[in-house]
């Protein structure tokens, strides 16, 4: 019996590992490419291990553009992604609770509006949004990249949290209500702690999406010193003239690090948050 379980365990790890390798192969390829000499990247794309490990891509890439180093770009991205994420997660949780637990006039309409706002391709809103933000005097600042997200504008997160709140027994709310707890108290004392896995999941997604978003940065940020990483990365490759793919890969490798670190740190709570939440029924 014991050996059978052991074999099963080994079998499990072999499968998970094997599949995992397939999953991360591209990433490994990118990291490896960042250590290749920049003019050999395409010619040796078929082989994984560089013939010669060089660090020049990192040095050259970090230098950035016109005296603005990647330190600046990283700082900008961090600011945008962190603030926008906090705004999104908190506001989405509020709205999700309202839509999930309170019956009020216009609830269905709001839900439909939320879904509808997800169904228009982002590209088509580029110009109208630009014109509108220009009217508001926001062009050239980070406001268009941050403020809208503080108003639960991404239906995805709201809907995700609604779904999560639906999974929490209503009896908990009822019990609290009998104890004299207001809706606001229920939200902050009961719901918020219980949906922490959803909050963490949402934070991971939101951080990643804000970090990767380059379209709004392209339109609204004029000053090069305010560029986020996502936009700066694109500057290495200009079709028609020489592109520095080595530097691009090097900085792309660095640019996924924050998301990876955040994921590794938070995924632990993803599990813990629930097992300690006392959802024993």
């Amino acid at each position: 019996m014991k050996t059978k379980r052991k074999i099963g365990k080994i079998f499990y790890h072999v499968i998970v590992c094997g599949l995992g390798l397939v999953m991360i192969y591209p990433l490994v390829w990118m990291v490896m490419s960042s250590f290749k000499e920049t003019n050999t990247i395409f010619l040796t794309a078929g082989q994984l291990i560089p013939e010669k490990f060089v660090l020049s891509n990192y040095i050259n890439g970090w230098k950035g553009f016109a005296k603005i180093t990647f330190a600046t770009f990283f700082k900008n991205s961090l600011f945008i992604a962190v603030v926008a994420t906090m705004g999104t997660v908190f506001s989405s949780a509020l709205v999700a609770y309202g839509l999930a637990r309170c019956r009020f006039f216009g609830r269905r309409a709001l839900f439909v509006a939320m879904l509808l706002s997800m169904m228009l391709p982002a590209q088509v809103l580029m110009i109208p949004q630009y014109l509108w933000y220009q009217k508001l005097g926001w062009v050239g600042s980070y406001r268009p990249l941050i403020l809208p997200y503080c108003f639960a504008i991404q239906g995805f997160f709201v809907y995700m949290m609604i779904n999560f709140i639906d999974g929490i027994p209503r009896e908990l709310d009822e019990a609290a209500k009998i104890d004299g707890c207001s809706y606001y108290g229920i939200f902050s004392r009961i719901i918020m702690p219980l949906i922490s896995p959803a909050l963490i999941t949402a934070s991971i997604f939101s951080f990643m999406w804000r970090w990767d978003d380059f379209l709004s940065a392209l339109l609204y940020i004029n000053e090069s010193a305010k560029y986020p990483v996502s936009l700066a990365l694109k500057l290495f490759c200009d079709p028609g003239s020489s592109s520095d793919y080595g530097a691009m890969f090097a900085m792309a490798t660095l640019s996924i690090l924050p998301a990876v670190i955040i994921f590794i740190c938070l995924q632990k709570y993803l599990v813990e948050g629930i097992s300690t939440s006392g959802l024993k029924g």
Partner: protein
Amino acid sequence: MKDNKGAGLKHFLNKESTAGVVFSLPFIIGFLLFMVVPMGISFYYSLCDYNILSPPVFAGLKNYIKMFTDDKVFSQTIGVTFYFALVSVPLRLIFALMVAMLLLNTTKATGFYRAAYYLPSIIGGSVAVAILWKRMFATDGVVNHLLGIMGIQTSFAWLGNKNTAIWTLIILAVWQFGSSMLIFLSSLKQIPVTLYEAARVDGANKFSQFFKITLPLLTPTIFFNLVMQMINGFLAFTQCFIITQGKPLNSTLFYTVYMYQQSFEFYNTGYGAALAWVMLGIIGLITAILFATKKFWVYTEGV
């Protein structure tokens, strides 16, 4: 007197209908402030001749009529997009659920595994993925190499053939299943352990536990993922934009990429807006159908 008023306000705020509105306030403001105006403008553009550089000129339904009468590519891209969405979304969800089940176990390596499976979604639509994906499916790429090892010698051009090119994009979409997986993972953890314990006492094996407990309790999350991924699938842009640009022979031209070309490459921006609104109609309809089926298979009773 003052106290009374305060209490009245407090009472008012704590009414269910008021609380609902108060909690929803961020979205109400955000929607009115950031969505309604741009959406309105874009709808107006869809009724105009507009080329970005000069002001729009009202043209009635011209753009919509052109779409259905004088645009062969339109129907082609609709076909491609439906194919892509209807194939990739179920595959992606099944894959995400399977991996989530696999990674539910907590061993020492779980954190590492989860990160590994989530990584492809982190690198998203970067240039690196574009280059790599083309390399993998090249005539002398990894895929053909692997087939060679399995005894199938081939130098098939996966990207160059109009029947297979779309599959390279589908595989890319399936490969980036991380977000659905995470949502499944966190919902799986929400299922009370007591239910499994009870089932084990009743002698149910892992299989019937999965089908009798896990799956039904997971249906709300499956539904959520399905709706979201359907919307994403129909609005898919990056895969096509960075890898195939619609080649060969428009066999991989996504609807949104075509819309983008019309808007920003050909400067038929009014037409592009009209395309977007038709897509909204299509997705809206599909979502409505999904919601209509909800009551037949989604488990809604509280746990």
